[in-house]
């Protein structure tokens, strides 16, 4: 099925920006690269572009494969493709790797210009606001003034929301999925534990582990294991693993239960392919995002200038980005009499549900996207 409707073989591209970017922190990034992929064709009026914003560990490789024998397609391949909910016959879809990432865009592991060494700890802390501003630069580079839509789940949803605040005239629709207008203390607490796991790893070296030719693998692994617990619901873990025993009880600290096997596998896989400095920055971007802050905590005031039409979606079993948090966004939009629809999808899979091809969830996205005029 997904093979039939696949965007096929894709290739990433890199855009170089030599104009400095002033970050929210006040730091200035003199130049930067953004790696991106596109699917579908930009129409003559350039009115059919859709930007996909990635979450914590995502990247620009949203759909398709690089080689026919790739084991996995892009991370949101079930959504993007010909005749899929985000139909590439209609839309020109852009995925990019955010600043600070580790998949080709400028980030801690990329080579700092003129130094021939990785940025390491010297790469600045970037925020959701910075990402959105850099994404706007990418649109300029591609010659696109206005987006038909911005779509994102989780941290990606925060970027979609920020787009409507920072560049209200540059997008028609925002699809904010499994997201929140800021993180709760509990949610930030998980991030802090993840960061502490990385930072206290003896192989972290203050973030300059590249120079020491080490990787804070243990820290990153634990951070990811913790993340995975919070992305699933109790029920989903129960259904997936329950108390299933891996082999037989050995009265040891080896893998005894299936759940442990899953977490260790996910942790190891992630630690082998993701950059710890990027992980630190992505979690910080999550923590810092709070558009209502400068409006005395009043989200309705923060969204007073938005023009985009909204689709807000949450999932019943998502406790890391709970439906209550999405309802706060909806309420602020209602207070401003904006065009908004809100779906609360009954789903078992917790936060991970936003990446799953649930039939009703995809029917919602398909119906909404079909109605967008390009």
């Amino acid at each position: 099925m997904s093979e039939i409707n696949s965007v096929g073989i894709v290739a990433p591209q890199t855009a170089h920006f030599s104009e400095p970017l002033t970050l929210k922190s006040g730091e200035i990034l003199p130049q930067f690269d953004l790696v991106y992929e596109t699917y579908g064709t930009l129409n003559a009026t350039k009115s059919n572009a859709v930007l996909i914003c990635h979450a914590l560990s995502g990247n620009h490789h949203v759909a398709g494969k690089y080689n026919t024998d790739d084991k996995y397609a892009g991370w949101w391949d079930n959504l993007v493709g010909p005749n899929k909910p985000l139909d590439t016959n209609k839309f020109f879809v852009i995925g990019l790797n955010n600043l600070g990432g580790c998949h080709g865009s400028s980030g801690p592991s990329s080579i700092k210009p003129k130094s021939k060494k990785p940025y390491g700890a010297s790469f600045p802390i970037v925020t959701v606001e910075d990402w959105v501003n850099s994404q706007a630069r990418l649109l300029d580079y591609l010659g696109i003034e206005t987006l038909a839509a911005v779509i994102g789940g989780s941290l990606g949803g925060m970027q979609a929301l920020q787009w409507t605040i920072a560049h209200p005239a540059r997008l028609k629709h925002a699809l904010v999925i499994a997201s929140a207008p800021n993180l709760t203390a509990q949610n930030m607490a998980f991030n802090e534990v993840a960061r502490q796991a990385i930072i206290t790893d003896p192989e972290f070296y203050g973030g300059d582990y590249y120079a020491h030719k080490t990787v804070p693998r243990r820290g990153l692994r634990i951070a990811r294991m913790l993340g995975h617990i919070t992305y699933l619901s109790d029920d989903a873990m129960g259904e997936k693993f329950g108390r299933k025993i891996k082999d037989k009880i050995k009265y040891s600290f080896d893998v005894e239960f299936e759940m442990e096997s899953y977490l260790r596998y996910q942790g190891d896989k992630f630690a082998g392919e993701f950059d710890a400095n990027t992980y630190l920055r992505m979690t910080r971007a999550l923590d810092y995002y709070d558009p209502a802050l400068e409006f005395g905590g009043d989200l309705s005031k923060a969204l007073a200038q938005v023009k985009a039409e909204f689709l807000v979606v949450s999932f019943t079993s998502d406790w890391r980005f709970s439906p209550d948090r999405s309802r706060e966004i909806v309420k602020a939009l209602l207070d401003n009499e904006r065009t908004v629809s809100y779906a609360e999808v009954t789903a078992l899979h917790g936060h991970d549900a936003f990446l799953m091809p649930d039939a009703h969830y995809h029917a919602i996205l398909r119906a909404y996207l079909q109605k967008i005029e390009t």
Partner: protein
Amino acid sequence: MSNNVNITNTNVLNAKFRQDFAIIAGWVGFGSKVLDLGCGDGELLVYLRDALEAKGYGVEKDDAHWLACLKNGTNVIQMDLEDGLSGFEDQSFDTVILSQTLQAMHNTEEIVQEMLRVGKEIIVTFPNFGYWRNRMQITAGNMPVSKTLPYQWFDTPNVHLCTINDFDEFCNNHKITVIERKVITDGEEVGFMPNLLGNLAMYRLKAN
């Protein structure tokens, strides 16, 4: 959230011309901001948008109805009315409508109070249990089953059926002002003995 039970009965009077829609439109001002609770597939909101350029939002719990609403191009918020209207500010809508859903609500008093909080005016419509055909069936010894009450006693979502007299009393006891009341049967307005001859009761209300 259980979406198995369809509590929106907006299709039960599916005449070619919806007299109840026309009456509601007469009570909603041009360009009004309208909230339709239990909006089904958004048919009424589409009607009010087309007829009056009303800025409408629907509230719907059922997945299939919610999706139909979205496809109809109406704003629709998925939530359970039994939880109240906490996502809506006081007096933020010109009119809040509860069309043929009151009888299926568990928290009947709460939803009416919530509607009065959110809406400057509210419209409540419900099948009149005092309608003579219902009385006949009761007299004959059975629970009524009809076009407006299309369920058997064992599978009905309706839990709080009432008569026009009952609802008049309810409004009186809760100090709710009845701005206007209309009663219709098969699309025709009923003026004479409405509690006996009226099938669908329609109230335009506001807080006292």
